[in-house]
């Protein structure tokens, strides 16, 4: 490595400077790295470690169920184990692994040097790691959650009083926040960090899928976070959201959970299909057939998946008409899935197939997944679901979907991308052993479950009686599970075995056509020597002299003249270059921010609210330092020559800037959580004859109107401040912000005064409770808005924001657009709706 670096230095000083700018820190400082190659790799390793942990839990369950009336685990131990198995696999493996692989590979596929917010990825990773260890660790102290991964109240609110449920709610909320952070990063990455010329119709299919999935995460996770919030409030403050005796309803949780939970299935499944969409054309030696169809199908699946959640609730006594509608919608999702599968098959038919372990896992995955898809169609048929629901049939079905649709493709992806990441190839021979053991073990384990379910074995039982006559089937399942596990061990050995003596793989070892295979062997930290102009979907196949031009720096940003880390930002549709973006380098700030954020959630679990509050203040302070030192740098010159005669601005603000997009996308997620709470309000209205209750006064209309007025003025003040800053009228700018802050305080206070002055006791009934939640949610956002206004004032004072370089105030204005909307909706709901309803 060193020798090579020296020769590069002598031969090409531009390359040397580029290498220097992107150099990975060494020694213990290695852990301060924020570049996607390092963070992505850690993320992948951590997710796989959690996967192995979840797998061991699965084996414990299979041992317990191997024979009837076994006493290997007690009932409570078993319940902790199955709860953790589901939660770990879903929240600590399935979602994070897709984000991990995307952070690792997406920039490479887009010819970008990094994602737009490297420190945000790093922060997300450290949050994930801390939260994951916290949640998993609980099982070693016997206090793990035991409410199932679906946590249905009132069992989890009134009957499980231990710390387990809190660990689940707070620990996983913490991780969900990190997932949303990664989603924001990936959406902006796909939309804004593509290479010049890569118009929307040329994007690698993987990036399309990730875009769809990240948008799904953005809209699916917030309802769950809203549900977590309501449940935690019921548990710690006795606000009766799910308590039927005080007007609440346990079904609200089920709706919020499954509005998240069903898209979750596709959030897990689509990225794996995305991997297959990269693997199949490479081994078929042909471009993907039906690119447009696949994109449409992926988008369609994403949309449809939000309209299916009720099929998890077919047995809750819903009317036949809604069951019919959701039954039909659930069937409909099979069609886009079918299109994607047939596009893959068509591509293989057109091309000349090269056989490899990757393809073996692809095919095995498809064959398995199709079984799961067909049983999925069966359970989507409501009458059959009345029998199959909550039995081992569903356990069989969902594992065929998730292992066939997710695990096999991910293993295929590991075999495929391992050489690009490490420079060494995995063994085809060991791969074949692993494949057959996994395929056979999997089917032996999970196929019999369909029958044990229909023979009457419900899910989530820690034991079963011998007269049920499912003992043999369960023993077979257990044996299969161990064969499957052995297959994984072979795979794991292949990945981890020392390979220092093994020769390096050739560059682009599979002869693929997409940009990530520009990676040199061994890989260089700069990603690509120069950011190419892309004209086709498979530039390595179709564009002449492409690799040579990239390597010799004939495209964009071949050097780093100022020694800064830079990448290109392009326009959303046509990928015209619009900015040379400077991204920040290694730091410890992200670690501190993650630890303190984690502190808020973890300390709250144990009801140490003072410590949690201190941790929260520290987290905010750290994040402010991070923003202050690491974002919106004023460059030494306005523009920069990025090569090929193109000159681009270094600093942009508004809708051309990645920061603006991140704010916009984050606030969409934030609004989704808020709308979920509003949904709760109207849900109570639909199920109760008397809502808002006749004898309740409500928050009145005076205070809400006053609050709305104040917040509207803040909103105007912030917009005025943006304008004054642009006109460089300093005193007017500060004046507007001072007014804004004063009015924010007034508005927040007025919001709280509504319910406070009307004796609305949130523990007495669900009506005051939900009003309080809406008000507190809005007030907290106003408080954050105050901090943002102070931040902007300080930035200008310190000379870090000027009339020309105004990203801070522009983004804060965008935030206030959303806060105005939030306040408007809150006031209309709490003050306006009771007038209409009566």
């Amino acid at each position, binding site marked *: 490595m060193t020798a090579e670096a020296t020769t590069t230095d002598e031969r090409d000083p531009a390359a040397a400077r580029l290498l220097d700018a992107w150099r990975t820190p060494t020694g213990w400082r290695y852990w301060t790295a924020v570049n996607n190659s390092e963070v992505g790799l850690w993320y992948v390793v951590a997710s796989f470690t959690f996967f192995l942990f979840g797998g061991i839990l699965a084996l414990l369950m299979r041992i317990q169920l191997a024979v009837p009336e076994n006493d290997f685990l007690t009932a409570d131990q078993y319940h902790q184990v199955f709860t953790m198995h589901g939660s770990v696999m879903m929240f600590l493996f399935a979602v994070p692994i897709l984000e991990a692989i995307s952070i690792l590979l997406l920039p490479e596929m887009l010819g970008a040097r990094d994602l737009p917010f490297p420190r945000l990825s790093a922060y997300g990773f450290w949050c994930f790691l801390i939260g994951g260890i916290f949640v998993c660790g609980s099982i070693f102290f016997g206090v793990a959650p035991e409410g199932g991964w679906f946590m*249905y109240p009132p*069992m989890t609110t009134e009957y499980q009083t231990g710390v387990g449920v809190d660990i689940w709610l707070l620990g996983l909320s913490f991780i969900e926040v990190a997932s949303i952070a990664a989603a924001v990063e990936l959406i902006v990455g796909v939309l804004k960090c593509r290479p010049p010329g890569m118009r929307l119709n040329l994007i690698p299919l993987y990036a399309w899928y990730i875009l769809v999935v990240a948008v799904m995460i953005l809209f699916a996770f917030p309802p769950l976070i809203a549900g977590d919030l309501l449940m935690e409030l019921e548990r710690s403050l006795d606000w009766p959201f799910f308590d039927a*005796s005080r007007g609440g309803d346990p079904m609200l949780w089920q709706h919020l959970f499954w509005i998240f939970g069903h898209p979750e299935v596709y959030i897990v499944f689509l990225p794996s299909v995305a991997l297959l969409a990269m693997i199949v054309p490479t081994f078929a030696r042909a471009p993907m057939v039906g690119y447009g169809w696949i994109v449409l199908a992926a988008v369609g699946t994403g949309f449809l998946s939000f309209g299916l959640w009720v099929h998890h609730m077919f047995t809750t006594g819903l009317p036949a008409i809604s069951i019919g509608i959701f039954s039909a919608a659930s069937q409909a999702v099979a069609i886009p899935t079918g299109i994607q599968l047939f596009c893959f098959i068509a591509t*293989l038919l057109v091309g*000349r197939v090269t056989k490899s372990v990757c393809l073996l896992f692809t095919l095995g995955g498809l064959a398995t997944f199709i079984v799961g898809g067909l049983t999925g169609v069966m359970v989507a048929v409501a009458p059959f679901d*009345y029998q199959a629901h909550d039995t081992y049939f569903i356990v069989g079905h969902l594992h065929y979907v998730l292992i066939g649709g997710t695990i096999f493709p991910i293993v295929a992806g590991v075999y495929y991308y391992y050489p690009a990441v490490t420079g060494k190839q995995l063994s085809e021979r060991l791969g074949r052993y692993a494949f057959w053991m996994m395929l056979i073990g999997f089917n032996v384990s999970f196929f019999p479950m369909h029958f044990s379910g229909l023979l*009457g074995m419900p899910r989530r*039982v820690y034991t079963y009686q011998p*007269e049920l006559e499912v003992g043999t089937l369960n023993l077979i399942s257990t044996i299969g599970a161990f064969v499957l596990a052995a297959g994984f061990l072979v795979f794991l050995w292949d990945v981890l075995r020392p390979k220092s003596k093994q020769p390096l793989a050739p560059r682009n070892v599979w002869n693929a056509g997409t940009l990530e295979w520009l990676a040199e062997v061994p890989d260089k930290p700069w990603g690509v020597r120069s950011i190419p102009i892309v004209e086709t979907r498979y530039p390595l196949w179709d564009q002449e002299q492409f690799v040579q031009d990239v390597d010799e720096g004939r495209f964009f940003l071949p050097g780093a003249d100022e020694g800064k880390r830079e990448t290109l930002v392009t326009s959303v549709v046509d990928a015209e270059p619009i900015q040379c973006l400077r991204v920040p380098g290694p730091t410890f700030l992200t670690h501190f921010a993650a630890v303190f954020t984690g502190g808020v959630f973890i300390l709250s679990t144990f009801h140490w609210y003072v410590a949690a509050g201190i941790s929260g203040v520290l987290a905010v302070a750290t994040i402010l330092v991070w923003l202050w030192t690491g974002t919106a740098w004023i460059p030494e010159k306005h523009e920069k020559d990025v090569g090929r005669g193109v000159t681009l601005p270094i600093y942009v603000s508004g809708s051309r800037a990645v920061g603006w997009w991140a704010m916009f996308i984050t606030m969409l997620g934030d609004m989704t959580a808020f709308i979920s709470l509003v949904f709760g309000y109207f849900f109570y209205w639909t199920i109760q004859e008397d809502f808002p209750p006749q004898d309740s006064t409500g928050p009145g209309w005076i205070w809400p109107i006053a609050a709305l007025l104040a917040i509207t003025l803040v909103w105007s003040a912030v917009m005025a401040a943006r304008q004054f800053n642009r006109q460089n009228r300093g005193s007017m700018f500060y004046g507007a912000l001072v007014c804004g802050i004063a009015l924010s305080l007034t508005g927040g206070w007025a919001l709280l005064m509504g319910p406070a002055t009307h004796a609305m006791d949130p523990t007495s009934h669900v009506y005051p409770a939900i009003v309080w939640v809406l008000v507190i949610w809005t007030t907290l956002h106003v408080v954050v808005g105050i901090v943002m206004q102070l931040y902007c004032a300080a930035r200008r004072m310190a000379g870090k924001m000027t009339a020309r370089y105004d990203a801070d105030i522009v983004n804060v204005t965008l935030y206030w657009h959303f806060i105005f909307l939030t306040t408007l909706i809150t006031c209309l709901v709490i003050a306006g709706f009771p007038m209409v309803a009566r």
Partner: protein
Amino acid sequence: MRPELIDDVSQSALDPAGVGATQIVDLFHWMVGGGVVIWLIVVGLSVYSIVVPGGHRPRLTKTLVIGGGAVVPTVVLSSLLCYALAMLPELHRPPPSDSPTVKVNGVRWWWRVQYQTDDGRTIETANEIRLPVDEAVEFKLTSEDVIHSFWIPSLGGKVDMIPGRETRLKLYPTRVGKFRGVCAEYCGTAHAQMRFDVTVMPRPEFNRWLSNQSSDAREPSQQSAIRGGELFRRKGCGACHTIRGTDARGRVGPDLTHLASRSSLGAATKPNNTENLRHWITHTHHVKPGVTMPAFQALDEREVDAIVAYLEQLH
């Protein structure tokens, strides 16, 4: 230890003994048949595409994508929906108003069962349901604590029991016999042992059973049973259990008025016999973890014998 078997009862959805269950098994068989055919075609095509050297014409494959991916699934799924959703109205239609109604409450981890007699009285029993054959019956279901799910696989589908709501389920048993019902929604510690016995019987037999159930508990006549009844009172059992005709009126635990007529104990955890009844009283949590009833380990041999003798004559 050799496992102990309760009566030979059916708990299989594939061995239907009711109208709903039979329809659903037919549906299942059709879907499995169709599924196998589809799987063979798609997987066969995939294997073919890999094994056979390619180079097929792109136009052909476009037809494949549109036909196989969109047209065929649309047609197949639409027909399936028509067939299956046509079953829904009948499955959901309330039974005739003169059909028997059974009210069942899920309680952690047992079942409170209430019948209406012809003279309008409510008869309570627990963990056992008897039904007349060839008659529709309506269940009114709710829960007294967490969410449970009421499922008798041999007779038909399941419906959840939700606190604060009443859900309904119609079943139509067509075969005399013994069946097993279970809780299908995870409800905490003893979820695996929350089961119940279902007996489908001819109408006259059912009437006899119901009239026996509607009577008060019989007075003990034997010496030890009399003493057992007294102990039952003195040890406070009546705080949780009802025995109609005595001053035991507790509502926390199952009604024991006709305990001896039931075939199992502990919500179908163990067969109802002397040995198991003794064990239940003294080692409750060993038999069924999590149960709220305290184990009466402090009772001496003779006290247990007496209580068991009392309970065993409650036919």
